[in-house]
C-alpha cells in the first residue's frame, strides 16, 4: 500500500527567506508525485508534478521539487517566500492513471512579515 508522510505539520518562515517542505512516500511500485496548495476556504490547486524524466521539477509561483528515488522523497522548495505563499501544502502520490491519489496530512506554511 502507498502512504505519504509530511513530517512538518507547521512551518513558520520569514518573508523572503527560503523554505523546504518535506515529503516522503512509500510504495512498492513506481509512482507519480504531486504537490498541491490550498489557500483558505478554497479547493486545491496543482503546484507541480513529477511523472518521469528530470528529477528537478519546476512549478508555478516559483516553487520547485526534487524527486529522490533512493530516499523516496519529493521535497518542495522555494528560494524566497512571499506573504501570499501562506497556505496549506499537500504532497500526493498515485500509482497509475487509473488509480486513486493518496494525500499526505499537509503542511501549514505561515510567512511572517
Amino acid at each position: 500500500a502507498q502512504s505519504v508522510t509530511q513530517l512538518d505539520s507547521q512551518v513558520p518562515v520569514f518573508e523572503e527567506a527560503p523554505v523546504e517542505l518535506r515529503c516522503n512516500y512509500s510504495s512498492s511500485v513506481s509512482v507519480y508525485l504531486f504537490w498541491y496548495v490550498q489557500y483558505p476556504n478554497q479547493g486545491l490547486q496543482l503546484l507541480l508534478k513529477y511523472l518521469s524524466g528530470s528529477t528537478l521539477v519546476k512549478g508555478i509561483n516559483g516553487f520547485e521539487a526534487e524527486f529522490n528515488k533512493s530516499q523516496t522523497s519529493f521535497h518542495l522548495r522555494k528560494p524566497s517566500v512571499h506573504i501570499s505563499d501562506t497556505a496549506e501544502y499537500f504532497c500526493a502520490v498515485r500509482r497509475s492513471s487509473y488509480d486513486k491519489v493518496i494525500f499526505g496530512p499537509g503542511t501549514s506554511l505561515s510567512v511572517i512579515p
Partner: protein
Amino acid sequence: GAGVSQSPSNKVTEKGKDVELRCDPISGHTALYWYRQRLGQGLEFLIYFQGNSAPDKSGLPSDRFSAERTGESVSTLTIQRTQQEDSAVYLCASSSPAGDRNQPQHFGDGTRLSIL
C-alpha cells in the same frame, strides 16, 4: 474553461437529516473523486469513479454514505441520517486519463457541511 463545480457551497442541517452534495466535473474528465477534509486536517479519500463505475469505495466511512455518477458527468454524494462528526468540507476532483500520461486532479472549492 469551466472548472469543477460543487454545490451547495455551504450546507447547514440538523442531525439526523439526509444531505446530498453535487459535483460537476470538467467536461470530458472520466475520473472523479470525493474527499473529506475535517477542520485542520488533511484530505481523506472517500470514493473514486472511472466513468460511471466505482472501482474504489474503500474510503466511505459507513453505510450512511453513498455516491453515484450518471452519464460520466455529474456525481452526487449522499449522507443519510447525518451525525455531527460528518461536519467537514467535502471536496470533489476530476481528471482526464489523457492516454498514457498521468493527469493531475482538478479540484472544486468544496461544500462546507455543518451538522447542528
